[in-house]
């Protein structure tokens, strides 16, 4: 497992199928349970992926999102892209051509850098509150 600052880069096995998924999830498990996990799955070695593999990717994404983190894919082969599209999950993942770019994408928008500005609707409700108070 490679780490790059707070972002963890992990290689996805060449045959990402039911047989490999268990080992992969065991290896990734502790990381998924950390606070705000930021994970890049490097798929450059993936040669085949089946429905169990896709399910594992979705499970990883779910776990990271639950903990306010994110999971991104890198170096997807055209074959893997076709599988993800076929199984309707391609749009769910952010994918980058390389692991470096995927890591940089985390740094470009750090998790802590969530806008502190008031949302757009606060102005409307703010006005309403003012009207209510005036009445």
């Amino acid at each position: 497992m490679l780490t790059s600052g707070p972002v963890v880069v992990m290689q996805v096995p060449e045959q990402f199928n039911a047989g490999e998924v268990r080992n992969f999830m065991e290896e990734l498990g502790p990381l998924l349970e950390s606070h705000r996990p930021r994970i890049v799955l490097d798929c450059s070695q993936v040669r085949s992926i089946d429905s169990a593999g896709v399910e594992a990717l979705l499970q990883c994404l779910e776990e990271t999102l639950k903990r306010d983190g994110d999971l991104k894919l890198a170096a997807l082969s055209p074959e893997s892209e076709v599988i993800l599209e076929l199984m309707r999950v391609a749009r769910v993942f952010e994918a980058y051509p390389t692991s470096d770019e995927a890591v940089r994408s985390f740094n470009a928008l750090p998790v802590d850098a969530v806008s502190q500005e008031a949302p757009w609707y606060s102005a409307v409700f703010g006005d309403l509150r003012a009207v209510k108070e005036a009445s």
Partner: protein
Amino acid sequence: MIGAVVIVGSSGEDGAERLLSSSTIQFEHGCVACIELLGRTVLGRTIEELLRGRVDSVAVIASSPFASAVIGHEQVGFFAAQDVWQKAWEKAKGFHAEAVIVVRLGAYVEFDPADLLQFHRDQGKAVTRAWSDDGSLDVWVVDPEIFAQNNGLVSCLGSEDPARYLVPGYVNRLESARDLRQLITDGLGARCHFRPQGTELRPGIWLGHGAEVERTARLVAPVYIGRASKIADQCLITRGSNVESNAKVDYGTVIEDSTVLSNTYVGIGLDLSHSIVDGDNLLHLQHGVSLKISDPVVLRPIRDNRVRSGVDGSFLASLKVRNVAMSSLPKKGQ
């Protein structure tokens, strides 16, 4: 008497590759001419046109036995041979006809045999070859007199500068998977005579005999659903897609701009677009990727309860989509 020799499969005689106008989509055991498309094979359609156009007898020479499944006519004989050109030569000589039409599949060429024969007679040459705007086609008319001066069909066809017959009709060279998809969309769009076999349920929506479409499945024209195929609930089939005979598309799957070949199962909740699938093989045209899906819940060949689809199921299952993108051989005269 007019005879015709239809050659299916690879060349086997020296010089044949040089003579042929193009390569075609080659599969492990045959070529695209034997695959059912819009309910009928290119081979079957070609034979039908020949018989309709004053040809008295047709000999089909194929390197694989799968082509035999399309033959069901007393005027048509099927002959399997490893060296298809040698066998074709024997059959051409055996016709004792006034002229022999030689067709090598698999480009799909719409021509009127009667018009071609008349042109051949008018030109007074021993050999006439069909051409389209972009080069020569593998369709010839040969006078049997030149058989004696040659020792093979290939040398016969290439023995002299042939008369050029410009095909006025539709031509699809079927050199690539894109060509195959183009043929489907042209057929569904009535831009050629490659029409779907079945009933037009609503404009642009064709169903083969015994096709089952569940009530909540949506077919958005133009589409073709082949005979004995099944489309499950909540599916959407659209944008010129064809699901050939005895295929099954399972619950909620969307098929768009794609071809599902005969005896193929497409799993639940998938999004199949810009692709050709055959059994567990998938060719994605936009990504230019071919892959074998090892997961049977996604794609798999249907092996039982098979209908006669023009080709054997094992042929479909063994389709090598990797070979679909073929490099073209140089066209003669170019």
